[in-house]
C-alpha cells in the first residue's frame, strides 16, 4: 500500500494512530508487520525527555552533525507521523548501535524509531550507489572468493584506495577486510568429507545421545573473511557430541537496514527465511557466532521489516548460550586445556542490546589460566559498514578512541570479541591481534585432545 497521494491523519478518539504514509518508493513503509502495526505511534508518549539516550549516544559524543537520538527519534517522530517530510537529514549519521534503546529507562524504542526515520529519509531522497554496494557483503564475498589473492592485493593498493575514496566515497584510511582463500561453505564440505573418510561419527564416538538437531548460521564475515571461526564452531560442537549442519545463507540484511534500504533488506530477509524456516519447523536449534546477525534475525525482522521468523524464541541463539546449556546438562566431554594468555574483552553493541550480557565470558571462564579483562570502553565506532564511508570515517575513528586508549592503558596487545567488524576496527585502531571467543575455546579443546 503506497500512500503517495493519501495521508492518514489520526482522528480524535481513533483507536489507533494510522501508519505514516510511505514517502514514495515502492513499499518503503515505515512500520513493520503484525507487531509494529500502528502501535509504535504511542511509544513516543513514553518518552519523558530525560536525555539519557543523548548522554550515552556514541555519535553525539564526537560530532555535531547528528541531531541526536532523542531529537531524531521521539521528538521528530511526532512530526513525521503527520508529515513524513519532517525527517531530519542528520539521521544518516545514526550508526544503529542501539545504545539509546538499551539505556532508556522508559522503554521507548528509540533505536527502532531512528532506523525507520533513516529508511524514510532514504525512500524520499535516495542513497548513494556506494551505500547499496556496501549493503551486499554476501555478493561482494562471493565475487571476492573467485580470486581472493587478487582482490586482497587490490584492496591493499594505496593508489586504488585513493581512487575508491574519490570516485565511490569509500574511505581510503580503513583497509578493507581481507577475504579468505576458500569460503566457509567450501571448507565445511571439505571438513565433512574428511570426517566421513575417517569414519568418525561424533554421536557414537562420544557416547552422547542428545539427538538434537543443530544448524550453524555463519553470517557473511565467517563465510567470506574468517572461515576459521566457523571451523572452530564445528570442532567445539563435535567435542560436545554435536554434529552441526551448515547452510549457505545470503546476507541477513543488517547492512541494508543500517543504510536505510529497507526494500533490499526485506528481500534478503525473505530469502533467508525461505532457507531457515524448514529447519525451524523441523525443530532445529540455530546457533550463531555474529551478534549482529542474531539480533537482526531475532529482533529486527519482526520489528522493522514485518517478517515473521516463525520459530520459538529460544530456537535461535548464540553459540555460547547453547554451550552453557550443554554444560548444564553435563555434556562438555572435554576439559579445555590451560591457555596462559591475557586478553582484552570488547563487548559489541549488538551483544549488549540482547540484554543478557556476554555469555561468551562465562564460557571463556572455563579455560584455565586465561585472563580476560573487560575493556569497558563502549562502542568501537565501526558499526559495520558505517566507518567505511568517507565522510563517516572520522566519526567512526573518534568513537573508537576510547577503545584504543583503554587497550593502551591496560597494556594489552590481544583482544577477544564476538563481532567480526568490531574485531576489524580494534585491529585497525590498535594493531592488536583479535580473536573470536570460539577460536580460543577450540584451541583449548584441541590442546586438551592432544594431551588426552
Amino acid at each position, binding site marked *: 500500500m503506497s500512500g503517495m497521494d493519501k495521508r492518514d491523519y489520526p482522528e480524535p478518539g481513533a483507536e489507533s494512530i494510522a501508519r505514516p504514509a510511505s514517502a514514495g518508493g515502492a513499499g518503503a513503509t515505515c512500520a513493520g508487520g503484525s507487531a509494529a502495526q500502528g502501535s509504535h505511534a504511542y511509544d513516543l508518549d513514553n518518552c519523558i525527555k530525560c536525555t539519557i539516550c543523548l548522554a550515552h549516544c556514541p555519535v553525539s*559524543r564526537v560530532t555535531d552533525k547528528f541531531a541526536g537520538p532523542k531529537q531524531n527519534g521521539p521528538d521528530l517522530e511526532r512530526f513525521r507521523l503527520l508529515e513524513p517530510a519532517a525527517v531530519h537529514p542528520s539521521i544518516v549519521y545514526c550508526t544503529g548501535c542501539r545504545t539509546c534503546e538499551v539505556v532508556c*529507562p522508559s522503554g521507548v524504542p528509540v533505536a527502532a524509531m531512528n532506523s525507520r526515520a533513516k529508511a524514510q529519509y532514504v525512500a524520499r531522497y535516495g542513497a548513494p550507489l556506494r551505500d547499496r554496494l556496501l549493503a551486499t557483503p554476501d555478493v561482494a564475498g562471493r565475487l571476492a572468493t573467485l580470486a581472493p589473492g587478487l582482490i586482497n592485493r587490490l584492496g591493499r593498493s594505496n593508489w586504488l584506495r585513493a581512487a575508491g575514496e574519490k570516485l565511490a566515497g569509500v574511505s581510503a584510511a580503513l583497509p578493507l577486510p581481507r577475504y579468505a582463500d576458500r569460503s566457509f561453505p567450501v571448507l565445511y564440505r571439505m571438513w565433512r568429507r574428511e570426517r566421513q573418510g575417517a569414519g568418525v561419527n561424533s554421536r557414537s564416538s562420544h557416547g552422547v545421545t542428545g539427538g538434537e538437531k543443530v544448524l550453524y548460521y555463519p553470517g557473511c564475515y565467517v563465510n567470506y573473511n574468517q572461515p576459521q571461526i566457523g571451523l572452530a564452531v564445528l570442532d567445539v560442537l563435535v567435542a560436545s557430541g554435536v554434529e552441526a549442519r551448515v547452510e549457505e545463507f545470503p546476507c541477513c540484511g543488517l547492512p541494508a537496514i543500517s543504510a536505510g534500504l529497507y526494500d533490499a533488506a526485506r528481500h534478503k530477509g525473505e530469502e533467508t527465511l525461505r532457507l531457515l524456516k524448514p529447519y525451524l519447523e523441523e525443530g532445529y536449534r540455530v546457533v550463531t557466532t555474529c551478534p549482529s546477525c542474531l539480533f537482526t534475525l531475532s529482533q529486527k525482522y519482526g520489528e522493522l521489516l514485518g517478517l515473521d521468523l516463525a520459530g520459538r524464541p529460544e530456537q535461535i*541463539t548464540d553459540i555460547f*548460550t547453547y554451550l552453557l546449556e550443554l554444560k548444564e546438562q553435563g555434556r562438555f566431554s572435554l576439559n579445555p586445556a590451560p591457555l596462559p594468555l591475557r586478553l582484552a574483552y570488547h563487548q559489541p553493541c549488538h551483544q549488549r542490546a*540482547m*540484554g543478557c550480557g556476554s555469555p561468551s565470558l562465562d564460557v571463556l571462564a572455563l579455560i584455565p589460566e586465561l585472563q580476560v579483562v573487560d575493556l*569497558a570502553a563502549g562502542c568501537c565506532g565501526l558499526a559495520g559498514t558505517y566507518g567505511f564511508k568517507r565522510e563517516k570515517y572520522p566519526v567512526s575513528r573518534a568513537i573508537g578512541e576510547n577503545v584504543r586508549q583503554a587497550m593502551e592503558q591496560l597494556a594489552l596487545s590481544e583482544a577477544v570479541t564476538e563481532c567480526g567488524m568490531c574485531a576489524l576496527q580494534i585491529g585497525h585502531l590498535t594493531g592488536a591481534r583479535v580473536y573470536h571467543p570460539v577460536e580460543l575455546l577450540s584451541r583449548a579443546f584441541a590442546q586438551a585432545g592432544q594431551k588426552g
Partner: protein
Amino acid sequence: MNSKKTDIMVIGLGLAGMVAAARAAELGKKVVLVGKGAGSLTLSSGGIDLWGYSLEQPEKPALSPRHEISRLVERNKDHPYAKAADVLEDSLAFFQAVCRSAGLPYLSNGLGNWLVPTALGTLRPTCLVPESMAVPDLQQVARILLVGFAELKDFYPAVLAVNLQKCGCLPSGCRLDIADVRMSGREMNAVTLAGRLEQLGVLEEVVAQIRPHLTPGTLVLVPPVLGRARHRQVRENLAALLGCPAYEVAGLPPALPGLRLSDALLTHLKRNGVTVLSGSTVHSVRLDEQRRRCLAVQLAGPGGRLEVQAAAYVLASGSFLGGGLKAGPGLVQETIFGLPVQFDPDGWACEEFLDRRGHAFNSFGLRVNENLQPVDGEGRVCLENVLAAGAILGGSNWPVEKCGNGVALTSGYKAGQLAAGGV
C-alpha cells in the same frame, strides 16, 4: 532457559546499585548487576548530597550535614538514614577510594557543605564534589568571569550572572563579567561540546577568546562541559592555558559530571569482575514454598530469557522515575517482588509546585528494618534474602532534603555489605 548462579544479584544501575555491587565485590563475592536502563546517575548533578538545609531553618544551607543527619535520626526513625547512617563514614571513605582509583577524585569541604553555583545562579549545598566543581569560597573573590558558549543549548550566562548577584553570597564590589565564546559549528548539547573540548586545538581556540577578559585573581566559572572520558586532561590543559583553574557549575541533564561518575563506577565494576547486564527487564521472580526467600529472578531481553540464581538480592530499582515503583489511582506498587509500599492514599502532593515542604509522593516507598530488609505494616520481614537500597526506600523527601545520593550511597554500601555477609 539458561540460568546463571551467583552469590549476589543487584537490581538497578543507579548509584545505590553500583555501590552495593562494588562493596560486595570488594568483599570477594561474585556479583551480577542488572538494569533496565542506564540509571538516573546520568541525570544527576554529579555531587553527593548528604543533607542540604538546616532542620530548623529550611531556607538556610546546612553548615554540617553530618550534624543534621544525627539529629534527624534521633527524631525520625522512618527515614532511610535511621537504618543506614551507621555506615555513613565507611561508605563515604569507600566511595572516595573507588573514585580516586578510577581517576575521578571526589573532595569534601572540611566537615561542611560545598555551595556549588548552578546554571541558574543559585547555590547548591552538597557534601562531596568532583575536583572540577570544588569551587573556592565565593565570599573571598573580587571578580568572577562566566564563560558561555553561543552554540550550547540550555546555558545562559546572563541568567547565571543576574541571579548570582541577587543571591547575596558575593562580597560587595565583586565584579561579574561574561565571556561569550563562539565556536565553529552547529547548535550543540553538553555531550557534544564536552567531546569537542577534548581536542587540544579546540581548547586553544576557546582560551584565545576567554583570555582578553581575564585579569589576575579572577574566578572562572564554566558550564559542566570539560570533557568526558578525558576530563582530567581537559581541566589540566585548560588551567595551563588560562594560567588559573576553571570550575564547572551544576547544570541541566545531560550533565557531564553525573555521566562521568556513572562511567567511572561502571568501568570499576567491570574491571573488578562484576557481571553487568544492561537492557534487561525483570520478567518474574521465583520464591520458595513458604514465600520467605527468593530463589531466582528471571530476566527478559531481546536475546531471550535468563534466570539468575543468587544467595542474596539487593533491590535498588529506584522510585517512580527509575521504575522501581508504579503509581495508579489510589495505589502504589513495587514492580518486581510486589513488596508492600508505604504511602498515604489521601496526600500525594501539595498545591504549590515549589512548596518547601516537598510533595508526599517523593517519600513513598519501602519500609525496611535495620538490616535493610523490606517489612510489612506490622514490621515483619517480607523476604529474608532481599535487601532494599536507594530511592526505592520510603521516608525521605530527597528533592527538598537534598539527600538522594547520600541515601543511595549509605544504603547501597550497607546492603552490599550485609548481602555479602561482611557484618
